[in-house]
């Protein structure tokens, strides 16, 4: 689950525009269980494996999100151009990125179902940047997202850029997802303790 309001730090992984859900997690891999602790690791292994190699990890390209033989990535923050997450409604897309270790995305715009799934499922935080930063940030740059001041800091280049406040979804993001939000507001009963 995403942490409320704390700074989010990590290495950048940079992508272009219209990264659709088939590129985020190719359909052939949607068969794995998201609940089974071992099986779900496949999602981390294959996250972003549908992106054509030359466009994966810009500006150089040919950088996979998750290294060969690994199930977690060394990168924590995706920086992308417009319309991130377009295409299908598969929640496996934000889930796969979370399983790979992605904490947040910075893009000027998102496809709405991906955005909604990211927020309602509490997988990661989709921040909207004011400008397209995909050509200014390099894959591997050390980033810090300052949620209090709505800034993206590039520690490697010593630059900073404004990001938009979360707006109407902030309460759900900070609750950690739609279920936690609904429980806080009495719409869903408190979870019963699990009995073995």
């Amino acid at each position, binding site marked *: 689950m995403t942490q409320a309001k704390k700074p989010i730090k990590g290495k950048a992984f940079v992508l272009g525009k*219209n990264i*659709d859900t*088939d*590129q985020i997690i*190719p*359909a*052939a891999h*949607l*068969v*794995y*269980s*998201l*609940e089974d602790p071992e*099986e779900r690791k496949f999602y981390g292994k294959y996250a972003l494996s*549908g*992106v*054509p190699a030359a466009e994966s990890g810009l500006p150089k390209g040919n950088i996979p999100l998750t290294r060969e033989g690994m199930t977690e990535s060394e990168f924590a923050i995706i920086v992308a151009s*417009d*319309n991130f997450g*377009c*295409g*299908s*409604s*598969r*929640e*496996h897309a*934000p889930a796969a990125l979370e399983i790979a270790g992605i904490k947040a995305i910075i893009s000027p*715009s*998102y*496809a*709405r*179902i991906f955005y*909604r*799934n990211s927020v*309602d*499922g509490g997988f990661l935080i989709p921040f909207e940047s004011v400008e397209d930063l995909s050509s200014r940030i390099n894959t591997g740059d050390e980033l810090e997202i300052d949620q209090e001041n709505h800034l993206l800091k590039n520690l490697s280049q010593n630059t900073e850029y404004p990001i938009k406040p979360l707006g*109407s979804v902030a309460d759900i993001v900070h609750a950690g*997802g*739609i*279920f936690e939000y*609904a429980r806080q507001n009495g*719409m*869903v009963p408190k*979870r*019963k303790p699990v009995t073995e």
Partner: protein
Amino acid sequence: MGMTLTEKILANHSGRDRVSPGDNVWVDVDVLMTHDVCGPPAIGIFKHQFGEDARVWDKEKLVIIPDHYIFTTDKYANRNVDILRAFAADQDLPYFYDVGTDSYKGVCHVALPEEGFTRPGEVLFGTDSHTCTAGAFGQFATGIGNTDAAFIMGTGKLWVKVPETMRFVFEGKKLPPYLMAKDIILQIIGDIGTDGATYRAMEFAGPGIKAFTMEDRMTLTNMAIEAGGKNGVVEPDEITEEYVRSRTNHPYTKVYSDPDAKYYSEHYYNIEEMVPMVAKPHSPDNKATVEEVEGTWLNRAYIGSCTGGKLSDFKAAAEILHGNKVKLDTYIVPATTEIARGLETETHFGIPLIEIFREAGCSIGNASCAACLGGPADTFGRLNSDEVCISSTNRNYPGRMGSKQAQVYLASPYSVAASAVTGVITDPRVFIQETVI
């Protein structure tokens, strides 16, 4: 100030007199649909959140239609259908269309109307982005994820941000004989881009809409998601009523846009002047007229999916394939089992459509999503290498139909069939002689 059709439905379902774009409202859900890819994780979340013994909010309103990975030996895919089967039995669900039984349907977005679940004025959510197809019936219908579906399973409610509406007004009386709804929606997506309708409703209207059959309208609303739209919608009329009444006795209330409703934008198209279109690799908005790309080398043709695998799509293809042989590997996949039966009973010049396809040399698959979204390696028609395919499906992002080395041109069934016969991208007007001016 009046409201649009979409705003009215959301107001009706959230207990409000009116809503405005940007409002966040909790709506009561009339139908929730899920399938074999997203159903199992949604069920997992439902049990985790509401308890192993929890019951769904209303078993009459939950529809489960396995359709994605059906005819495969993939053990995980088959395991997922088993999870649906166990859940349907445990919850005693009346609307589960199980694989390997007479009730098996195939592609959910075509099965939903066939089974009477697409009713004017209602709210339908589905764990699939092409759930927007059902807007053709004057329903508010949109795609959601597993978590939202699990939330609905337990509560019967979901929050929705009321979208602004873009209105697409069709002028003209009838579609030219070589033109299909697919050409029109490819033109629109090409004009506004894959994010041209993000967070918005796309309402298809105007006098020309009367020229569209229910299946034509479904092709329009189906691809609203390819422009980023939240939903696509058409006002119900006698064409809608005739279809819905032939499928269900369930009561419903028709809803219309007010004459003084406020639209984000209006876009005008004269359907009599439009031409066959394609979306070139690798994006649905990469538009060209078929004429502009005529002669492009191909080695695969595919007719199927929720977008282009309906009975009218196959009738169109049969018009061109009749008496011809295909020069490409050509795959025919009916969306549903009802359509598959239709291929045997519908005729063109007295010959069943299926005979025309067999004679032409096509391969015919079982009703399912099949290669539209790639799927497991043994999926019928999947692009496994560097194929160049012309397809009546809905997406052509890298790797969508299988291999990311493949290239996909999206087109109407007329254009796919014409190209299958010649072996290169071909304007259907070459075959539909009477219309050549």
